[in-house]
Structures are given as C-alpha cells and as structure tokens.
C-alpha cells in the first residue's frame, strides 16, 4: 500500500513540508519511489507567471540526452526563459545515472487557441518521451504544461527532498501532491511513480486497480494521443478523469459515476437514473476495481478525492479555510495542517467525491446518490 499526501493552501509553501508530513505515514511505503506534483508555482529566482510561461519537468540521464532535449525544444520553437538549477547532493540519490534534473520555464507560444496549445504541449511531451525511449531511456519527461512541476525519483521521500535541496524555499507552490511508493506488481520505473499527468490533469492513487488490463486496452483503442504508457495500473485513473472531463465534457461529479457506478437498484431510485444507467453501459470498460483512493488535481487548482466502491482504502481530508490536506492517514493530515479543528476532519465513504474548490473556503462533499447539474445531457 502506498501513502499519499496532498496539501493545498492560499499561501505558497515549500514542497518539503509535504515530505515531512509523509514521514508520519512512513510504514506505508518502502522507498521504491517518490512522486511530486506542484501547482500554483513560484520561484525565488524568477518571476513566474502562469499566463505567460510553461514548465517542462523531467530528468536527463546523460549529457547527450540533455543536449538533444535542448535542441528539440528549440526546433519546436519553445523559447527558454529560466532553468531551475537544483542544488543536488548526489550522495543521497540511489540512482547513479542522473545527469540533470529538469525544471525549465519556457515562453508560452502566442496566437494559438487553447485546444491547439494543449495539443502542442502534449505532442512535445510525447515526442521527448519517445525520443528518450529510443535512446535507451536516457531522457524522462514528466510534464510540459503551464504551472505544473513534476519530480519523480527512486528512494525515500525525505532523502530525495534533501538530495534536491527542496527545503531551500527556492520553489514554492499552492498545491503539492506527493506519493511514497510501495512497489507492487510492476518494476521500479520512473514513469510508474504517481502522480500521473495528462494535459493539466493529475491523479495519484493508493491501491491496486485489478481491472487494469481491460481498461488499458479500451483506452488505447480510443487512439487518443497521450493515452499510452501504462507502466502503472493507476495511470488509467488520470486518463479516465481526462476522458470524462475533457473528451466527454461531463461535470466532475460524473467521474465517480464512471469509475464506480451505482448498482441498478440504486440507479432505479436516482433522479438521473436513466441517464446514469446509459452512461454506465457506455463507459462500462472504465469501471475500476480493487481497493483505491484516487486523489486528483485540475488546472484551476481544485483538488478531489474519490474512493473505490467498497471503500477499501482509507483517506482523510481536513483543514481550515485557506489550507486543506488530503492524506492516506489521519496522522498525515495532522502533520500537514496542525492548526485545524481535527473534529471536522472528514473520511469519505464509498459514495463521496470530496472537492476542494480553488477558493479553498470550504470542502464540497458530493454524494453519488444526489443529483448533479448536467447542463448537457439531462
């Protein structure tokens, strides 16, 4: 079982805080990997603006890869504005082939529609990823998007934080997702570390998706660019969220109805039951299985948490207006936001979707049994 922690706050904070918070839940991961995703980013050495800049995150494992990356980005017309240099203490990093950790800021190209830009960013990311794979895996690219930094590394979370000097406050963020990995059925691979990212949407999961193969086969069959990889059985959660919200244009509440639909008897009583039954049938191959707590974040900085249909995984959300945390265990929430009222902590049940809206004023707890506004189809 892995451990997950997410913190979202109005005032940017250091990702190191979340890593320390994860220490509280240490028995739940085995040092096989850490994944970090930052949103609402600010740099001490650069005046970052979401509207103007893009960030590329990854790792170059050799100088040649680093040079290629540079060349490809230039050829694709992306103009570099800032290159964040981590103060790396490589003694603390297990892997010995890390030439350069990449967090680079580029100028956002002008004159493109939102969809065009999003596609271009994804194409560039996929191109770089493929280029790395063609060169013996010497280049790993996690995300290329505005306002998102991703770091993934093998090892113990706090040690990786120390190794990259994340406690120096040079990078801060308003939303940080972190996963300490417990290696399960797939080999240690940087791409297999959560969170998973596609076009601004990110999820991380605690658990095992036993319906992985049929879901993966269906997503691949859609031939949607970016629906690939699948080094981890949890990667499909991110892609389903992307599919539901961006391809089907359904409200966020429908995510839960797609991955863990209600039973027929329950839908027979639901005000939108007829529609939801049809949706369940049409999206049948996206029903997840196994014990899972899925934590996601969206480009507008809203955060969400949904449980598997049997609530076989724990997860708690707690906080106060302005700062909220979601973690696998209560002690994780306690470590991240000590100055809250713990009696208001909430542990979602099987039917719940917990949403922390971008204004961070209060939690939205939405039950699957409740109707939702479905402008489009209802």
């Amino acid at each position, binding site marked *: 079982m892995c451990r997950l922690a997410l913190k979202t706050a109005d005032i940017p904070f250091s990702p190191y805080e979340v890593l320390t918070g994860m220490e509280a839940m240490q028995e739940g991961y085995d040092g096989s990997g850490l994944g970090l995703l930052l949103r609402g980013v600010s740099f001490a050495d650069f005046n970052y603006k979401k509207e103007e800049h893009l960030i590329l995150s990854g790792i170059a494992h050799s100088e040649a890869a680093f040079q290629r990356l540079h060349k490809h980005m230039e050829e694709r017309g992306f103009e570099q504005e800032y290159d964040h240099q981590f103060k790396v203490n490589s003694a603390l990093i297990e892997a010995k082939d890390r030439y350069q950790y990449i967090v680079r800021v580029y100028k956002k190209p002008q004159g493109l529609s939102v969809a065009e830009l999003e596609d271009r960013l994804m194409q560039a990311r996929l191109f770089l990823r493929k280029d790395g794979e063609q060169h013996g895996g010497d280049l790993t690219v996690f995300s290329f998007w505005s306002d998102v930094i991703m770091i993934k590394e093998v090892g113990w979370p706090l040690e990786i934080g120390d190794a990259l000097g994340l406690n120096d406050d040079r990078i801060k963020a308003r939303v940080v997702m972190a996963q300490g990995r417990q290696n399960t059925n797939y080999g240690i691979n940087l791409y297999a570390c959560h969170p998973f990212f596609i076009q601004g949407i990110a999820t991380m999961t605690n658990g095992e998706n036993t*319906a992985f*193969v049929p879901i993966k086969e269906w997503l691949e*069959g859609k031939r949607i660019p970016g629906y690939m990889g699948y080094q981890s059985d949890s990667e499909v959660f991110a892609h389903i969220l992307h599919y539901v919200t961006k391809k089907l244009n359904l409200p966020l509440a429908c995510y839960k109805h797609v991955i863990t639909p209600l039973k027929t008897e329950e839908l027979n009583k639901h005000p939108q039951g007829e*529609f939801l039954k*049809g949706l369940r*049938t049409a999206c049948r191959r996206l029903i997840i299985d*196994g014990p899972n707590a899925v934590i996601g974040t969206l480009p507008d900085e809203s955060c969400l948490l949904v449980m598997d249909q049997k609530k076989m995984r724990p997860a708690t959300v707690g906080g106060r207006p302005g700062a909220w945390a979601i973690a696998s265990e209560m002690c994780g929430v306690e470590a991240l936001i000590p100055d809250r009222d713990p009696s208001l902590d909430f542990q979602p049940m099987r039917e719940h979707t917990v949403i922390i809206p971008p204004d961070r004023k209060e939690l939205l707890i939405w039950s699957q049994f409740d109707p939702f506004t479905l402008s489009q189809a209802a």
Partner: protein
Amino acid sequence: MVSVRSVYTQPSSLTFSDLPWIIQHREDRCTLCGQCTAVCPKQAIYLTYRRQRMPKLDILQKKRGNEYRHFVGIRQHTAIDKMCIGCGMCSSVCPNEAIGPVPNSNEHRSRFHMDEKGDAWKRGGRRNVPGKTILDRIAFDRISMLTDPALDAGRHEFSLNTILGRVLPPEEFLRRQLAGEWIPPTREIFPFVIGSMSFGALSPNMWLGLLQGVAYCNEVLGIPVVMATGEGGCPPWVLRSPFLKYIILQIASGYFGWDEIIRAIPEMQCDPAAIEIKYGQGAKPGDGGLLMWFKVSKLIARLRGVPEGVDLPSPPVHQTLYSIEESVMKMIQTMSMAFGFRVPVYPKISGSTSAKSVLNNLVRNPYAGALLIDGIDGGTGAAYNVSMDATGHPIASNLRECYLELVAQGRQNEIPLFAAGGVGKNGNVTQNGMALIMLGASGVHVGKYIMQACAGCLGNEMGRCNVCNTGICPKGITSQNPKLYRRLDPDDVAQRVADVFSSIRIEMKKIMAPLGRSQSLPIGMSDALGIDDADAAERLGIKYIC
C-alpha cells in the same frame, strides 16, 4: 460338431463384444421382474429361454454324463437398430442391481455399420471427444496478494451481470442523448444464458420446468437468467405472458413458429429479452435445424404450422437473393423494426475461421446487438455424426480472435460477444464460463450442462445415450411422447435450475474475489489467465504456466 460353413453371417452381423456397451446381467440376482426390458428405450435387451449343460459324474458307476437345465435369462440384441446405448435405465429400475451396461474398451465394430439403409449416422447429443478441454485447463492465476484487503466472496457485494445489446461509444451516446435520438436497447442479464433448445427438441415438461426455474431465478433469487428458445417458436401462452421478458426468441432458416409469434406481437405484455437469428450452430455448421418425424407431435405440428409426423429439416442458410451479409443486415433490421427497436437482435453463428469477417460486418451494422459464436463442442437435438464430431471450430481461440479484433478497433464494449459450445462439458461450468469471459466473452450460452444438471440427461462424450433425435429420450427430456415425458416433473426441473444458478453465482464470486474483482464482470481480463500448454497460451495470448 456343426460345420462352420453353415453358420449364417452377414457383413453387418455383430456380436455383443462388437458393441460400444456390453450388458452385464447377473443371473443369481435377477428375479425376472422384466422392468429392465420394459424401460429400455432401444429394446436392446430381451428375456429368452436358454439351455444350460449340467455335467454329471456318477462315481459309483464310474460314468460321466450330462443333464440339461432350462432357464430364463436376459440377453442383448446385436442388431444396429437395437444396440444398447449405455443409458443405464435398466440398472436404475432393477430392484436387485442385477443388470447394467459396461463400456466396451475394445474397438467398436458397430461403428462401421451405423449407415444402414444408406443413410449416414444421425444422432443427438454432442461431439464424442472425451477428456479435458482447453477451457478446463485454464487457471485463474493473478491472485491479489500484495496490497489488497482481500475480497470476501461470502460477504462482499459483487456485480455479476452483463450487457446484451449494442452499446454506443460514450461520445455518441451523449450526442444522441442530447439530440433525443434512438439509443439501442440493452439488457442487463446474468452472463450464463440457457442456450437455444427448441420447443420441439425439448419435451413440454422440460420446457415448462426450465421456464419456471428461470422465472424463479429472476423473481425470487434476483439472478436475471434468460433462456433462448431455439428454432420452432414458443408456446402461445408464454408469448402472451409476463415471462416473455426472460426469453430470447430464435428465428432460424426454417422460420418455424414465427407465424404464431408475429400473430402474438400485438398481445404481448412485455418485450422478449432479445431476438437471436440463427445462421449456424456449433454442433453442425452448415446444416440447418432438424426435427425428426418421431418428435413432430400434434402440439409441435400446431406450433410450427406443419402436418404431424413429418421430418422438419431447415435449410442450411437463410433464403437470400444475394449474400449472407445482405441477409444478416436485412434480417437484423427487420426484426428490430418488428419489435419497435426496443429489443436487441443478434446473430448466432458457428465457430469458424470466418467468424472474424462476420464480426467486422456486424460492427458496421448499427442495429446488431451482439454476436454469439457456437463452438464445435456444442450440442444438438439431431445431426449427422460427422458434423458433430468433425465439423466446426473450438470456441476458445475463435472467441479470443474475435475479441482481439474488436480490441484492435477499440470497439470491444460496443458489440458484446457471447460464446457457446462445450461450456461445462466436463462439469466445470463456472470455470469454463469465466475463462471465456476473461478471454473476452460478455457471457456464455449453456445447453447440455443445463440438461445434465437440471434434468438428469444421461448423455456423455463416450457415446452414452445421445438418442435425442429419435424421441425415445429415456429421461423424458427430449421426447414428445407423453409416456416418456411424464417421467420428468417440471417442478423438479425448476428446482434444479434454481440450484444450478445459485451455485454458479457462488462460484463466480469464488473466482472473482481472489482476483480482486467485484465491481464489474472481468470481461477480457486476460492477465488473470494461465494454461499449462505453451502453444495454447501463445494462441490465446495468455500466460504459460507449469
């Protein structure tokens, strides 16, 4: 001494050791009650007087001699038409365990003479190839051991149902929903379907028992089982009853029974579960249905709209002007229209290397609700032995191929594939069915297993019984003779149907729980399968385990 030349022999003269089943009769136990000879469906045994020599030795007179005793004993006919079929009815009625058939492990001379009068061997039943099938050898080996709190088959909730009917891609579903356009009908059903067995092939008691059992499963046990009729229509009272919703009506190339169905449409209380258009059958590909004259009783004649006591062979294919594709398309559309586009319509074909082409055709037909592929191990009420034993394609690789074809096109959720043909052949019905589901089937159709488990059919793959075609079914399952079918109590059949489906439900959970699956039927979960044969593993795209 009798001269050998005077022994009369014909080419087809056989002795008891030439037959597949040899009757063993224990004189010392027999009371000559005659029950065995009365019950024997083949009149294979008869009472006869025999003479026995009793050696006599007179010691005082130092003389040897003979005395003779006469006795009544039971003997076995050796003529082909009276050959014992090993059904075992004689032993089941014998009060003293004095008689019973024993399989002859020697060659079967009789096999060379089954074509008397110039007609090749016809029979009912199944492919006579015993032994483990490929499906029997598949193990579910992806057990969640690392991170899960395990599922509890006894306490957790499981979604076991499947969908029958055309499913739209999500984008198209939403578009039509928004535009208020037609959305193809679907049914949520239990993935084990009682496969097509016609009213005609089955006796009225068997049919009634099955229907009663199915209704009980649906209405009391909450297991949405459906059953298919096979060719030959459906009793008029069923057509007008609320039970019709549990029934898949089959239309086949003889169109038998459809006058009655069409007439009933305006009076139907509910829609049928689906319409199955039979293009082929696993047991006898390229052959139409066959109801032999023995079974065309008054009731059957009325239902099918034919005279009594005539053979009813359906043509091998549907009458069509141009091509099968065209007729598939037209029939699916016509049938959809007849039921107001509210009932899924799908074709049934025999397992074949051409199944993939049929499938690709259906993918492009927006009204096609599913595809049922029936493999070589499927059963039948009547067919030529050569069709049953040697014609067709085993279901496992055929189904897998078709599923992977859909996966390659990204349409595996749109046309549900149903598989049939040998599911439960050796009694492992749930294991076989779940293996097919994980290979990509949305569900399976089961026929012979249901007859064996719910009605006590005696047939097996070693040629036992398998006389379903001639109307002499000793259990009353496939006979239209009231003397025979009254042996079968519909209530008992219904009880067994309920038992069988309840236990399939339990076994499904016992298979799914260790795999960590409970939210949806694990269709296409091929990562959970392994087989102890490297070639089969490669062909099916699953793991080789040993």
